[in-house]
């Protein structure tokens, strides 16, 4: 009779080999998350840059030209194209050659010189809502700056409210910092979930699951065998991504590294649990991958990464309590950027731990049911 330990290590070795058997599998598990981290971290931003705007200046005066130069000199606008008629605006906005158009009426300089209000119109492409809203904000800023200068010139003096902003934890508002702390979590989710969800389903499909069940293992041992290899692999992937984020992208790490490793362990365990649970209720790999998708899409979309959780309708807010990604992201953002303290990390670890416990025991119940 083999000792429990060596039996278990044989099982773990077998499970590990099932994932790690040939260079092709290794490549496809390790390379994509890293490659995507590099691509997405470089490419994705919510900032709007390189805006091409068309200007229809019906005033054609010193004042209107000065106002337009505010757009030309700003960092957001790439091309400022002057046109003479509305039909050109319509034509180019329609095919998305330009993202916005500015229309200045002929009485612009007359009003400004008298110190009256002058209206300008900005037309935006509602097909890309966030871009449109952003450009609108830029235009208002430029208009406010110009107004101030023009008022000074016209000899109008007065007070205003200035909002002095300090962005804590990310003083230069680098979108990449936010993105990286979320991407590490999302990519870890994809790898871990695919590895675990397909594992039991694959054995069912190939018929080897019965062999495993009738073997000398207890259901807890089978669970360990199914949990440890993917957990180790995904912890490795997360570690490599973290190192890349810190070294290549200069992402600060302010919290405790030890706490981070521990949290990743718990968070990934909860994802492994979800994956194994999906796998345990599926007959074949196609069903399992469907389960992965049905879990992953809502988990990512409702994690707070794309839109904040406290802005969601109550139904979705309650649903996010079951979403490990939500808590994993809180911890990742907290420990990277905010020097989150143990007590706060712990509050996020509790739900992760409960999700892990629930899903893993559900998964192991399937082994037991099969045994009996």
């Amino acid at each position: 009779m083999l000792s429990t330990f060596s039996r278990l290590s044989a099982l773990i070795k077998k499970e590990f080999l099932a994932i790690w058997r040939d260079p092709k599998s290794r490549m496809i598990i390790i390379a994509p998350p890293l490659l995507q981290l590099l691509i997405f971290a470089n490419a994705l931003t919510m900032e709007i840059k390189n805006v091409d705007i068309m200007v229809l200046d019906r005033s054609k005066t010193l004042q209107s030209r000065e106002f337009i130069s505010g757009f030309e000199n700003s960092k957001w606008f790439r091309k400022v194209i002057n046109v003479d008629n509305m039909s050109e605006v319509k034509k180019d906005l329609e095919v998305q050659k330009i993202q916005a158009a500015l229309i200045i009426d002929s009485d612009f300089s007359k009003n400004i010189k008298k110190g009256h209000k002058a209206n300008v119109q900005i037309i935006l492409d509602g097909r890309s809502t966030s871009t449109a809203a952003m450009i609108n904000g830029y235009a208002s800023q430029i208009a406010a700056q110009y107004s101030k200068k023009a008022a000074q010139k016209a000899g109008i003096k007065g007070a205003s409210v200035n909002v002095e902003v300090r962005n804590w934890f990310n003083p230069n508002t680098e979108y990449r910092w936010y993105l990286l702390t979320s991407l590490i979590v999302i990519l870890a989710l994809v790898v871990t979930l695919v590895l675990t969800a397909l594992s039991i389903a694959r054995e069912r499909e190939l018929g080897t699951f019965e062999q495993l069940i009738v073997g000398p293992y207890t259901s807890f041992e089978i669970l360990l065998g199914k949990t440890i290899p993917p957990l180790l692999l995904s912890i490795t992937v997360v570690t490599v991504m973290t190192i890349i984020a810190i070294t290549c992208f200069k992402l600060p790490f302010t919290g405790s590294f030890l706490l981070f490793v521990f949290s990743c362990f718990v968070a990934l365990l909860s994802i492994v649990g979800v994956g194994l649970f999906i796998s345990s209720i599926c007959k074949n790999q196609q069903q399992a991958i469907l389960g992965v998708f049905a879990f992953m899409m809502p988990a990512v979309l409702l994690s707070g990464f794309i839109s904040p959780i406290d802005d969601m309708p109550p139904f979705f807010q309650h649903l996010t309590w079951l979403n490990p990604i939500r808590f994993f992201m809180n911890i990742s953002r907290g420990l990277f950027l905010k020097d989150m303290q143990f007590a706060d990390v712990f509050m996020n670890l509790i739900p992760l731990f409960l999700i892990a416990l629930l899903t893993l025991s559900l998964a192991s119940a399937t082994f037991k049911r099969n045994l009996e």
Partner: protein
Amino acid sequence: MKIVLAFVKKEFLQIIKDPSSLVIAFIIPLMLIFIYMYGVNLDAVKITLGIKNDDSNPEVSSLMKSFGHSKYVRSQVYEDKERMYEDIVRSKIKGALIIPNDFSTKLASKQDAQLLLITDGAEINQASYTQSYVNAISNMWLASSKYKSFVTPQLVNVESRYWYNQDIDSHHVIVPASLAVTMSLIGILLTALVVAREWERGTMESLLSTNIKPIHIVLGKYIPYFVVGMLSLTFSVSMMVLVFGIPFRGNYFVLFFVSSLFLFTCLGIGLIISTLTKNQLLASMASLVAGFLPALMLSGMIFPINSMPIGFQWLTQVLPPRYFVTFIRSEFLAGTIPSVVLLNSLFLFVLGTLFFMLVYKKTARRLDA
């Protein structure tokens, strides 16, 4: 032709046998529409703002009220500055606004008055919303407060018009764009899995060793999943328009034509993946990487392509979702614009044909070998 039909029939029987294919085609798209519609909000979001007022002037309390009444701000008044700071660290509030004790005296003496705003930069989108809300609300308050006669007039007033989407409701854009995700799901993921399973079980090899022409085998794989994809599209579009009230200003024929081209490219990618991996685990991983994540991240659906570094803008040009998302947003909101339709369908057609040829070549070569 008869052989192709037989293949198609066999594939269909397989699809119907496993209900999960139908879940992929109908239930998941519905779930996605539901989440995009109600769970995701890319428009002005409501943020929680902490306020600490050091100015005892009664006029300033009307500023506090303005924050309380704004529909974009959930305001929370603090007495203790340190506690407010702690709540930022804990993400309980997204911004902390401090009204200094000289705020009203400065305004009364026609000087610029300062407000200090601290935002949670770790949540960058909300930080920028917080900043613009505070700016807008304080300026609006100023224009109606008793200091309004001292205020520098805002000489240039920007009127904004949003074409094609008057209320800039992002759901009208992102819900149609979610078709890119569901179609990649069927075209790439489902197809790659099914064919990878055939390779795993060896049925593909035995099929290739018969004297059936490779073109028939290839068509036999394309057609069934194409039909499933188009059925799913029809279902999704009718749900969007009829149930969820997404405006559709285009032409249904054009919509279906361009969508079928997109599906054609997706099927190509799915079949290439399955032929290369021949294993369901690897095929699903590769499909997620090559299909799902680009459709979500690099299609312009959420993250603007124009703001990407130029090299990555080129990368998006070889990925089909970009063309489809550009087209679908325009078709839904602005109606059929010939140049948008032609340009995007041309690219999709070229990519799709390229992939088809690759699939054909791969299948044909196996036969010779």
